[in-house]
């Protein structure tokens, strides 16, 4: 019977050695979720994640709105990665409506999504720093993040909630002399990102603290179906931008980063390396982009789809982001399901934390590249 009870109402075990800690939802090391952690001394014997504090019913509400008005809604789970979370939805809707996107729009989309990936990753890195007690590493990425936010604000007009991707292209064209400003910012940022290594990634205490903690082996990473940086830190070279290139990623020049260690340090390093690749992609896309042309196909008002089921996926800041859209000849989708990287990586958390020290809990938890709002939807 006790297995049927919700997590908050279960009776505590009477074993006196085991202490149950509620980490969250008000806890400096939890974010918008709760971890029910049982510790024996300094070791974690069991961990039960309890997400859902930001469950807002996006999927249900998407069934009541048409394909276009869903756009501002579906970006809300990850407002600081809004271009990437809209990307699979927009691709899927284009499949349903049968739209061909102009060439320039594809490049603009790629640039926006890579800029947004940097914005997301820098925020993630900032929180990772504060979780390890490194306040400088909170401030530096938060400050550098404003560079990319400025660029995106120029492009889209909004600071974080861009709603830039629309079926048929992007909402508006790039502003004048965007290329110069963007290149300048990217150049500056590449200089700056090297300094992160000095203060953070090469820091002996950080390395000693996160190496060999929360090790996820290659087989387990595959078995648990993890994705994104968690998967690539465990030695699986799987990046959807390479494996199933969408839009113009197959014509761009970039590498995927793979590390074999599978520990918290490798998991924290992959997004950092990815940011450098993002800079490369942005520069390459800016040079290959057609200098003029349309960026948006005009749609009928209130478009209707056929009777089909589409599953499209992209590589977001947190890994694969799949969108399953079922249409039933109506202006509203019959069902929209977002299969998000955070939710998929969450399954690894109880598995990784078992047997770890309590001090490793924040670093292992946040190294999973988990954004609670997205996982709850």
């Amino acid at each position, binding site marked *: 019977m006790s297995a049927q009870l919700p997590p908050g109402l279960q009776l505590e075990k009477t074993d006196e050695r085991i202490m149950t800690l509620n980490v969250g*939802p*008000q*806890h*400096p090391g939890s*974010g*918008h979720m709760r971890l029910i952690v049982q510790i024996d001394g300094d070791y974690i014997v069991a961990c039960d994640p309890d997400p*859902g*504090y*930001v*469950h*807002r*019913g996006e999927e*249900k*509400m998407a069934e*009541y709105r048409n394909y276009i008005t869903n756009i*501002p*809604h579906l970006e*809300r*789970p*990850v*407002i*600081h990665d809004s271009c990437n979370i809209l990307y699979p939805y927009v691709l899927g809707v284009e499949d349903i409506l049968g739209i061909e996107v102009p060439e320039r729009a594809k490049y603009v989309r790629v640039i926006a999504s890579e800029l947004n990936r940097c914005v997301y990753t820098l*925020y993630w890195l*900032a*929180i990772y720093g*504060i979780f390890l007690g490194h306040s400088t590493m*909170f*401030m*530096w990425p*938060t*400050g550098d*993040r*404003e560079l990319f*936010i400025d660029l995106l604000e120029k492009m889209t007009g909004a*600071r*974080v*909630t861009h709603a830039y991707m629309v079926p048929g292209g992007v909402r508006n064209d790039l502003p004048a002399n965007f290329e110069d400003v963007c290149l300048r910012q990217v150049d500056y940022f590449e200089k700056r990102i090297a300094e992160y290594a000095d203060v953070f990634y090469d820091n002996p205490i950080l390395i000693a603290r996160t190496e060999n903690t929360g090790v996820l082996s290659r087989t387990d990473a595959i078995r648990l179906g993890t994705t994104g940086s968690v998967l690539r830190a465990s030695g699986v070279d799987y990046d959807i931008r390479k494996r199933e290139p969408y839009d113009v990623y197959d014509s761009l020049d970039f590498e995927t980063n793979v590390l074999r260690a599978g520990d918290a340090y490798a998991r924290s390093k992959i997004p950092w390396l990815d940011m450098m690749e993002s800079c490369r992609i942005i520069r390459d896309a800016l040079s290959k982009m057609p200098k003029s042309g349309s960026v948006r196909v005009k749609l009928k008002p209130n478009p209707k789809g056929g009777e089909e089921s589409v599953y499209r996926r992209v590589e977001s800041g947190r890994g694969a982001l799949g969108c399953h859209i079922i249409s039933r000849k109506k202006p509203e989708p019959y069902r929209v399901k977002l299969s998000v990287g955070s939710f998929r990586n969450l399954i690894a958390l109880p598995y990784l934390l078992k047997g770890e020290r309590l001090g490793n809990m924040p670093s292992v938890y946040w190294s999973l590249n988990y954004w609670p*709002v997205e996982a709850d939807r």
Partner: protein
Amino acid sequence: MLKDIVTPHNANVFVGKLGDLLERAIDKPLGYAINWGRIWSLWPVHIETACCSVEFGAASGPRYDVERFGIIEAFGSLRQCDLIVVQGTITRKMAPRLRLVYDQMPEPKYVIAMGACAITGGLYFDSYNVLPGIDGVLPVDVYVPGCPPRPETLIQGCMLLQEKMKRMKARKIV
């Protein structure tokens, strides 16, 4: 005759009058000083409720830096905090926890509702799991609109709260 005057009730009245006298003498300058201290030392609770926490994080970053106003980011325990910034949507699961956090904070405490979701429910006005605003849960001092509000807006909200605190009576000393 004297017995009639010196009664416990009269003694109480006398002590009360003395207290009033002292309060009148001390309350104003001391109240000024204490209000001034409270204004410049707003320590927010570390509770995130939804996506506005991103902009709250940005507000304590180098560009906006709310520590200029004495607001420390990421403060540890809620027992030492004065300000609760409700950063966005309150779901039905979070609402009891939010009230619990508020109840555990020491007086005096202030509430800023940040973002459209915390004010009215915002985009999620028709969602099955979202409260239409936090007025039913917490007494809100300042509403900061936006979805999400820019950090400047949040800072302006904090300044409005400071203005409000200046006019508050500081006597609620526990």
